[in-house]
């Protein structure tokens, strides 16, 4: 199968402080991949490099069949859902105005209403995005991503600070999107139990790939023990409530 996104023999990080060298990684259509690892392990750097936000120091990036494309060539086909805390609160913005920024205003009111319905936020277009709850805000980001019918969605600790109920809604919506659009998901999370429950592939890194495979495998658990210590254990959401 042809990967939807890849890094080949990449050196990632900053030119005066490269984080990983000769790094290769591929993501295939329909996959829900979780990147896990301790702070400073390189998860965000890999995601930013894959998204073209951080230029590669060496190696190549393939995205939707294009080698080292500019993001303007991919607009709408890749999407990014950042942490809610990273939003600049100085900019007054309603949900509708935020959506109108997508692809330089290419989408009309019907597209906006459809995207809001998909993320279960119908009627909130005139609401200030700064007055939304954490869960609602992440769904706004998701709706923004969905306006472009993305083939790849990258989420950087997107469920950080959400309560269990909001997380469940969020993950259920994500799974629907993957199934409906055959999109691939790349998720960074520290919530190992959620990762184990929802992802179908997990990549455990600590400046190199330590494990790449099934999240229910014992090898993944031993990898976690190696990086977080022998005392760590996984709390399973599926059995706890």
């Amino acid at each position: 199968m042809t990967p939807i996104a890849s890094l080949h023999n990449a050196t990632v990080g900053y030119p005066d402080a490269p984080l990983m060298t000769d790094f290769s990684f591929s993501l295939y259509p329909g996959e829900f991949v979780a990147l896990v690892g301790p702070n400073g392990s390189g998860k965000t750097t890999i995601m930013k490099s894959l998204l073209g936000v951080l230029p590669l120091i060496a190696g190549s990036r393939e995205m939707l069949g294009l080698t080292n494309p500019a993001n303007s060539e991919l607009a709408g086909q890749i999407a990014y859902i950042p942490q809610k805390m990273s939003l600049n609160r100085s900019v007054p913005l309603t949900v509708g105005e935020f959506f109108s920024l997508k692809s330089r205003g290419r989408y009309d009111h019907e597209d906006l209403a459809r995207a809001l319905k998909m993320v279960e936020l119908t009627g909130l277009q005139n609401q200030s995005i700064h007055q939304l709850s954490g869960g609602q805000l992440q769904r706004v980001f998701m709706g923004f991503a969905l306006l472009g019918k993305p083939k790849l969605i990258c989420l950087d600790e997107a469920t950080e600070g959400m309560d269990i109920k909001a997380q469940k809604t969020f993950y259920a919506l994500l799974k629907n999107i993957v199934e409906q659009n055959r999109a691939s998901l790349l998720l960074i999370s520290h919530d190992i139990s959620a990762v184990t429950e929802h992802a179908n592939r997990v990549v455990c890194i600590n400046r190199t790939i330590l494990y790449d495979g099934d999240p229910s495998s014992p090898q993944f658990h031993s990898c976690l023990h190696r990086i977080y210590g022998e005392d760590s254990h996984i709390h399973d959401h599926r059995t706890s409530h």
Partner: protein
Amino acid sequence: MTIELLTSPFVWQALQAALLAGFLCGLVGPLFVWRRLALFGNAISHASLTPIALAQIAAVPFAVVLFPFSLGLSMLLTKIEERGFPELDSVLSIFFSGLMALGILILSFSEGGSSEAVHFLFGDILLVSRADLMLLAAVAVAVVVYAVISWRDLVLMSVHAELAAVEGVPVRRHVYLLMGLCGLAVTCVLLLMGAILATSLMVVPPMIARGFTHTLKSHVIASVLIGVAMSTGGLLLAVVLDTASGPTIAVVGMTLFIASSLIRKN
């Protein structure tokens, strides 16, 4: 006497300059506040004393030295910010005070140096020339054209730079263009209001507007209206009270900001 003054050609010309400056600052101001560029504006305006002093010594029009200098300094400061310098505010302060001090030193070698320094620091919109007015209009047109064409990109990169980059917004190009235009806008305003007061017209209108608006559109419209009201109202008050125009405009701005904060609190 006051009526005569208010209808005199030089006040009329100053009013046109105030109107343009208020409009320009009201429009650019929200981007200034969203992107936290107030200190950047202060650095550009205060550092301008060096090129103004050089122009004075060389007996050439200020604009000839001032605009290339401000553009160059804007690009340099943007480059420093791009390199992720952790103590950026301290670096800005070094340029801010160092270049201002250098300007004062250079002026001390010219005849009437200290009085000229005071004039450049505090400005006088009533002394605005036809050429200054045309320059201000040209920069205002350039800023409006750029803002209209790139508005969505500029807002998205202010909301979240990385999200904008993923969406295909040429963030780096916009940052340099925006900083260059902001540098030019600050420079135009400092010719009217003086180096010390220039940023007040940039920052006060969007800050007042932010307290009463929660949509992008209303914030920008309110900022433009407040900018025009602050600059023209301050100027008229200065004429009526026979006070220095730049400081009067800045004090009017601060008073409006305090009053609006109190109204919002109640």
